Structures are given as C-alpha cells and as structure tokens.
C-alpha cells in the first residue's frame, strides 16, 4: 500500500497523504461537534441533543427559533469567515514565502476598515441615521479590501512583484489606512465611532441568513479555485528561479493567487469585520499537522480557521455575558502569543 492517494487529471494533480485524510476527517468531526455545543450555549442553554432535535425540526418552538434563526447563521458565518481568512493567509504565506504574512498585516483588512468608516461618515445624516441601507456595508468593505490589495500589488510592481516589496508596502499601507480610519472616526460623532469600532475589531454578532447565503457561494467558489491552483502555489514557495525553471509563469500565477487571497479575505471582512490573526495562525497549525503541500494544506487550514473563529465567537458571547465582546479580541489574544512563539522558533527569514 502506498502512503499516498494520488489524483491526477490534465489540469489537476494532488498528492494526498493518507494521514492528511485522517486529519481532515477528525478536524471536520471536531468542528461539527464544536458547532453543536456552541449552538447550545448562551443566554438560553440548550442540551446538544436538543439542539440536534431542533435542527431537524423537532423540539419546542422556542428552541427551534433560538437555534435556527439566531445561533445557526451566526455560527455558520463564523466558520465561513474563519475558513476564508485561513485560506487567504495560506495563499499569501506561499506567495510571500514568509510564514509571518497574513491579510491583516499587509493592509487588506485595513482597506476594508477605511471603507466602512467612510461609509458611516458619508451616508449618515445629521441625526446619525443612515441614509442608505446598512445592507450596502459589506459591499463597501469588500471594495475597500480589494482596492488595497490591488494598490499593494501595483505599488510593489517593478519588473515583477517581489515578495519582500509586497510585505513592506503592505505594512506601509496598513499604517496609512489605520491613520485614515482614526481620522474618519474623529471627524464623526462618537456614536458612529463606537459603531465602526465594533466592526473593525471583528464580530459576527447579529448575523442573519441572508448574509450567510451571500458569503457561502463566494467562499466555496474561491476555495475551489484555490484548490485548483495549488500546484502553482507549491511552485511559488520554491522561489522565482526554480519556478521559472519548471516552466511556471511566476508573475501571472502570483497575480491570480493574490487576487484569490484578496477575494477570500475581502469576503470575510465584508461580513465579519477585521478578525485578526486567523490568517496567520490557522495555516501554521495546519502546516504542523499535515506538512506544507498545498493540496491538503488548504482544506486543513480552512477547517482550522473555521474552528478558531467559532471558538473565539463562543468565548466572545459567553465569557463576559451579558456584554458582547467582538470575536476579534479573542483571536488577537490567542494569535499574538502564538505569533511571538513563531518568531522565536523561526529558522529562515
């Protein structure tokens, strides 16, 4: 018996470590279990079995309402946003060839933040009521994220895009975006600043089904595209010289991958705000589990990211109840020490 399961078609090639398949299965089960437990926790505690019942249409009406209308969409959004951020981070780390890169550090999240604060500033009247529907907010955030991703790419272009330039320019733009965000918050009334601040920190509070159903197809489509391009990602990790040597159109693939990464991160921040450090942490943990072949790294990262945000959200709504803390506070609180640990043991630059 071979150690691998091999899948090869004209445009695809995957090498699945059998161990990785196990990891994926176990992670999936853990994720489902965590979701079930999370659905039962909160103001109104429900036993996991009753949650299951409620999901399948049994149980009391109250339980059904709480589970399917309030908690399930929120949990699904948490998982989707986490998965999208994680895959985005995994792709970015491959392109930049540095395991410390992530969509929030290179300014993609910052771009979305500016867009959101601008949205609040432009479209509210004197009495602070929004003059357009709040439903447009995700679109604004998404455009902001995309614009910055694009800008970073353009500015880093100089006879090709080098990973180092990409990071440095990203960090610079992230700082500028932060300054702009603060400026916008100061210019507006304090009420609006609070509103924007909750969003910027990242929260899945108050999610409804419509949001989940908008994000779901987007993340699925981008995720599948990312999977299709994994072999180019594997090549990117080897560096420009080797990449050219094996006949990969390095620059073209870099653009495509960067677009995918931005699209995923943009989608996530559009609905869940600036949840930090997930794009950094999840791919790392995944790499520890299954190694760095992207065919398995991407699904494992996605599951890991979903689990992280799910747990962060659970902590956010239960630890300080009845106060709601943005989930982003918790991802930062675990993410930063993890990052420090990574810095200590990092070998290559």
């Amino acid at each position, binding site marked *: 018996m071979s150690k691998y399961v091999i899948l090869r078609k004209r445009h695809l090639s995957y090498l699945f470590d059998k161990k990785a398949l196990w990891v994926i299965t176990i992670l999936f089960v853990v994720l489902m279990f965590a979701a079930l437990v999370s659905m039962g926790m909160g103001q109104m505690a429900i036993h996991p079995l009753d949650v299951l019942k409620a999901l399948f249409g049994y149980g009391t009406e109250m339980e059904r309402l709480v589970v399917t209308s309030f908690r399930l969409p929120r949990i699904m959004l948490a998982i989707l946003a986490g998965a999208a951020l994680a895959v985005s981070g995994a792709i970015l780390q491959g392109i930049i060839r*540095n395991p*410390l*890169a992530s969509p*929030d*550090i290179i300014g993609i999240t910052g771009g979305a933040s500016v867009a959101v604060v601008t949205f609040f500033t432009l479209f509210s009247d004197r009495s602070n009521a929004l003059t357009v529907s709040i439903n447009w907010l995700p679109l604004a955030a998404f455009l902001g994220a995309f614009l910055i991703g694009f800008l970073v790419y353009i*500015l*880093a272009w*100089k006879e090709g895009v080098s990973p*180092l*330039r990409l*990071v*440095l*320019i990203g*960090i*610079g*733009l*992230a*700082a*500028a975006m*932060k*300054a*702009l965000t*603060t*400026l916008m*918050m*100061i*210019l507006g009334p*304090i009420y609006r*600043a*609070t509103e924007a*601040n*909750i969003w*910027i*920190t*990242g929260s899945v509070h108050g999610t409804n089904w419509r949001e989940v159903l908008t994000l779901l197809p987007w993340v699925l489509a981008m995720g599948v595209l990312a999977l299709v391009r994994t072999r180019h990602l594997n090549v990117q990790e080897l560096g420009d010289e080797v990449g050219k040597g094996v006949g990969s159109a390095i620059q073209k693939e870099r653009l495509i991958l960067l677009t995918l990464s931005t699209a995923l991160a943009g989608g996530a921040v559009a609905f869940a705000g*600036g949840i*930090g*450090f997930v794009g*950094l942490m999840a791919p790392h943990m995944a790499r520890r589990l299954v190694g760095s072949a992207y065919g398995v790294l991407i699904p494992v990262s996605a599951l890991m990211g979903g689990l992280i945000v799910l747990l962060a959200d659970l902590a956010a709504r239960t630890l*300080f109840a009845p*106060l709601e*803390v*943005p989930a*982003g*506070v918790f*991802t*930062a*609180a675990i*993410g*930063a020490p993890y*990052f*420090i640990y990574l*810095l*200590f*043991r*990092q*070998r*290559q*630059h």
Partner: protein
Amino acid sequence: MPGILQSQYSKCLGLFIAAVLVVILIGCSIVYGLTEISWGMAYEAFTQYNGSNEHIIVQQNRLPRALIAAAVGASLAVAGALLQGITRNPLADPSIFGINAGAGFAIVVAVSVFSTTSLTAFTWIAFAGAAFSAVVVYILGSAGRDGLTPIKLTLAGAAMAALFSSLTQGLLVLNERALEEVLFWLAGSVEGRKLEALITVLPYMLGGWTGALLLAPKMNALHLGDDVARGLGQKVWLVKGMAVLLVVLLAGGSVAVAGPILFVGLVIPHIARGLVGVDYRWLLPYCAFLGAMLLLAADIAARYVIMPGEVPVGVMTALIGTPFLIYLARKGIR
C-alpha cells in the same frame, strides 16, 4: 555614503540654518491658525501681557503646541536614527515597531479599567507602555537563529502593533466613555496639550538627546558592522542596549505627550543621511532639527486642511510618510 554637505564648514552652516528655520516655524506655529494673530501681537503677549483673548491663545494654546511639536519631532527623528542604526533596518521607526500602539494600549487600560484622569498619570502610563513594547519588539526581533533581519523585525513590529491595537479596540468597545476620552489622543496630536505635559517628559527627552550625542562615536563604529565594532574593542551589546534605552526615553516621552505620531522617525533619518552622510555626530543633530521642522510644518498644515476643523498631526505625518516608505521599499533595501 557621502551626503550633499561635504565640508565641515557647510555642515556647520547647514545646522545653523536648520536651527533658524526651527525658530521661524515655531513663530509661524504661534501666529497662524483659525484665530489670526499678528506677529506684533504675539510679541506683545510675552512682553506686555494684558489678558486679551489673543494673548491667552498665544500663551495657553499656541506656544505649548509649538514647543511640544518641536520637542516631539526632534525626539522621534533621533529615536528613528538610533533604531535604524542598531537594527540595520532602513525601515525602522518607533511607530512601525509597535511602540505607539503599546503606549496607546496602556493609556486605554488606565482610562477604562482604572478610571485614570490625571494628566501626569496619563503621561507616565503612556511612557511605561511605550517602553514595554519597545523592549518586547527588540527582543523578539533579535531572537531566533539568524538574529535581526529587516523583514523579521518589521513583521514583529507590525504584529505587535496589530495585537495592541486590537486589544485597545476591544477595550474601547466595552467602554464607550473611554473611547471618547482617548480617541483624539490615539490619533497623535499636539493640539490642546498643556505645557506641564511637556515639562514632565522634557528631562527624559533632554537625557535622550544628550545620550544620543555621547553615543554617536560608538554608533559610527557599529555602523561598520558588529564584527568590526567588536574588533575595535567595542562592547557591542552594551552600545545596543544603551541605544535601545535612549530610544525608549525619546519615543516613550514623545508618545506620552503627543500620542502616536507615525513615520517621523522613518523619514527624517533618510533625509538627514542624504544631507550629511552616515557620521552620527552630524547625523543626530540634523535629525533633531529636521524632525522638529517636519512636525511643526505638518502641524501648521493640519490646521488648514479641513478648516475650521483640524486634522490630527499624526494623520498628516502618516499620509506624508507612507509614500516615502513605499519609495524606500521600491528602491530596495539591503
């Protein structure tokens, strides 16, 4: 790398001109703004104070503001030059290394958790927070097998900044009143700051400036590389440690008075190097004067952008600094 100014004479002259420009800009900072004040009236405010509105504005508002801008600009630029020297990272800057965010976090904790309101306490807490994160980032950046690499240090700083700012945001979400109090401070501004705030930190800034000048010859040796410096009989770790301490004094003091002001420490050392080269004995004084000039000018400009409102000067420097950072990144770093 030789600068534009080659001879001893031209360097002295340049320094003199820079000093004069700083004084002129302080004057402009006192005179220009929403309330127009004539030069004569500003002069009278000091010689024959009569308690008129204009005189009060000059003494209570404009003068402290100008002096704080000058002191903070000078301190940040010198801190940046020292950081760039010891880390060999041309992109080093107190704000990029998360020092500001650390101070901001400390302030927000103080306001929201301990309900601090006293100005002196504010100053000290910011100072401590800045010092703490400076040390953490430096230790982080130099840890690991290959020691300090520019990209590692930059990422370490960016991540620490991200950490502190998300924790800050988290606290602010929980405590709206704190948001109101610290939001303006968090943007970095010299407006509305009291002279006492400057006087509290001035001894440390003075210590930082003097210390930096005394350390300049050692920094020159360090510039040749750790091995060469060691060969010349220098205790490299001691010099680096001293320099970090000075950065903490300078950047911490600045953040305590004016909040996080971005990129002054990044931009100015590059300009100063272009003028006088890498000799730290010249470089540091030039940084001090140019830094003061930049912040004074940015602060004056900040009053006119959205008149009658004001842009925090920290936002102005960020907008000036970002293109510069992009330029440096495109030019390529070692």
